[in-house]
């Protein structure tokens, strides 16, 4: 397994390089720069500012300088948040985003698998149709609709039952308090729960019809052993393959969720940075996300091989 993991990590280096180069050149070749908004700088001051950030040099030289710094772990200064380096900003934002994302993925996997299994075991019965209908809704209603609606319902109006008023914070992070996490994590996880439960249902239905499940039942094993020991593991394989795309989906969702709920994660930096042409900040966030995606994909592949002994680490 280890040679495989090492080879995969090494293989990710060119990928990461491509990502960095693409982002860098796309940002720099485009018209407009980070200091265009402040139009009224006197020419010599603007010149000095540009020189301080190496913006007066040819693009490829800027790229070389950036790469050099990157190797030392230096992501450069933020153009817009003058008092911070990008590394500092990410150090603050990453734990927040990571916590949000991981909570959401765990919730999605656990709930998705349970719901999908339940639906498969009641194939073509009311439970099945109910779960799959909900899943369809989860897939078709976008995050940016569920987020404001849930914020409105739980945060502003509140739920009133049994004489209790039930409120959840509709925004802010509050140092990651549980109450503050409920809504954003739910919103982020909803579409993934839906997709995963559909996946699990489909593969479970197929596995339940397989010959080896018939063998297990012919052996007189109790139902729960047939399902959990023989069927579920094989039915989970498509979920593991889907983890890569799921992570990508979560990242996209996190941009929205962090913006709407006002959470100080790196997703919000990215959106702000992109709009403000804060090159270094955008670069930093992209590198961060890409590394995250690569590592999680590797984890997913290893998980797959562990679940299915027929797959070798080749």
């Amino acid at each position, binding site marked *: 397994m280890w040679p495989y993991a090492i080879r995969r990590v090494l293989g*990710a280096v*060119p*990928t990461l390089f*491509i*990502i960095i180069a*693409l*982002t860098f050149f*796309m*940002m720099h*070749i*485009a018209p*407009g720069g980070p200091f265009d908004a402040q139009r009224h700088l006197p020419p010599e001051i603007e010149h000095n500012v540009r020189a301080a950030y190496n913006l007066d040099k040819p693009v490829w030289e800027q790229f070389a300088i950036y790469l050099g710094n990157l190797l030392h772990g230096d992501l450069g200064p933020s153009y817009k948040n003058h008092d911070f380096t990008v590394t500092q900003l990410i150090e603050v934002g990453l734990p927040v985003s990571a916590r949000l994302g991981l909570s959401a993925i765990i919730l999605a996997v656990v709930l998705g698998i349970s719901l999908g299994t339940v639906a498969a075991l009641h194939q073509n019965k009311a439970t099945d149709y109910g779960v799959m209908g909900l899943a*369809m*809704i989860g*897939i*078709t*209603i*976008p995050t*940016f*609709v569920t987020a*404001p*609606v849930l914020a*409105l319902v739980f945060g*502003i109006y509140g739920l009133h039952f049994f004489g209790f008023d039930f409120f959840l914070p509709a925004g802010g992070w509050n140092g990651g308090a549980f109450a503050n996490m409920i809504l954003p994590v739910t919103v982020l996880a909803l579409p993934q729960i839906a997709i995963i439960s559909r996946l699990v249902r*489909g593969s479970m*239905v197929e596995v339940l019809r397989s010959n080896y499940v018939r063998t297990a039942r012919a052996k007189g094993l109790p139902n729960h052993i047939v399902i959990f020991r023989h069927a579920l593991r094989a039915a989970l394989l498509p979920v593991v393959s889907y983890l*890569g795309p799921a992570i*990508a989906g979560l*990242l*996209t969702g996190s*941009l*929205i969720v962090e*913006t*709407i709920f006002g959470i100080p994660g790196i997703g919000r930096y*990215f*959106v702000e940075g*992109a*709009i403000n*042409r804060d090159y270094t900040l*955008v670069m930093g*966030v*992209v590198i961060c*996300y*890409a590394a995250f*995606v*690569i590592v999680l*994909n590797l984890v997913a592949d290893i998980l797959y091989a562990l679940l299915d002994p027929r797959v070798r680490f080749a």
Partner: protein
Amino acid sequence: MSAPGLTTRNTETIERALDIEGRSLWTDARRRLVRNKAALTSIIVLSIIALMAAFVPFFWPYGYADIDYANIACAPDWWPGTDAACRAGGYHIFGMDQNGRDLFVRVLYGARVSLAVGFVATLVSLLIGVTYGAIAGFVGGRLDELMMRFVDVLYSLPFIFFVIILMVVFNQNFFLLFVAIGAVEWLTMARIVRGQTLSIKQKEFIEAARAAGVGTFANIRHHVIPNVLGPVVVYVTLTIPTVILAESFLSFLGLGIQDPLTSWGVLIADGKDHMETAPWMLVFPALFMAVTLFCFNFIGDGLRDALDPKDR
């Protein structure tokens, strides 16, 4: 066998007239699709939305950019509750937006943009994906390995970021939106087509055709493409909603289409800002979008079941 007086020619004509029409897989699939109530309803609903979006300027009294300053953010007449600040009156059945424009016509104009992006970007991804995947699958060997490695690399890029950067950098060029989203979606299409091509290439009927002297190119055209078509059609119907979502996502972030033109994403973003005072501004665009996505998903599922019938 033939009755006296009939020439052989005639018996043959009769024989031909008696030929039994076979049910092709497509005929079967169509029959199954029509029997699928969810898919059929979806097709009808989608057609209605698309037709309304296409013809709304011809039958609706208000234009998408007409501003009625007297009726800013007014509720439709039938809206329940008494707390609405004002009632729009007239034919404003969906109420008015924050600039005093008729929401009904704007939702349908949003449908125009969202559906157009959906179809065009999917077409882009279809063209690139099918060509790329088919070539990789057919030629096979080294080239296949190289081409698919490239796709793998692209897959691990966080693409939505590139789209965002692209949109920022090129000032929300509408045409670019199609290209950018299409360029993201083609990857999966290429993988699907390649996988299908590979599996069909191994089928005995391809070898049978080769034994019958059919050349490579004719083989692709007569045997491979018709057989790959099924899964591709299914994937296309499932890609359209993904693309619509992607567009509205960008519009929501303020990176998509520009005012006064609109899309569902823009409308939902506006609606979100006014949901406490004018909830209809969120409800109608969100409803239209959800229904549309619902329909595409149902059609996709229905097509898959129709083309590949295994009792699910």
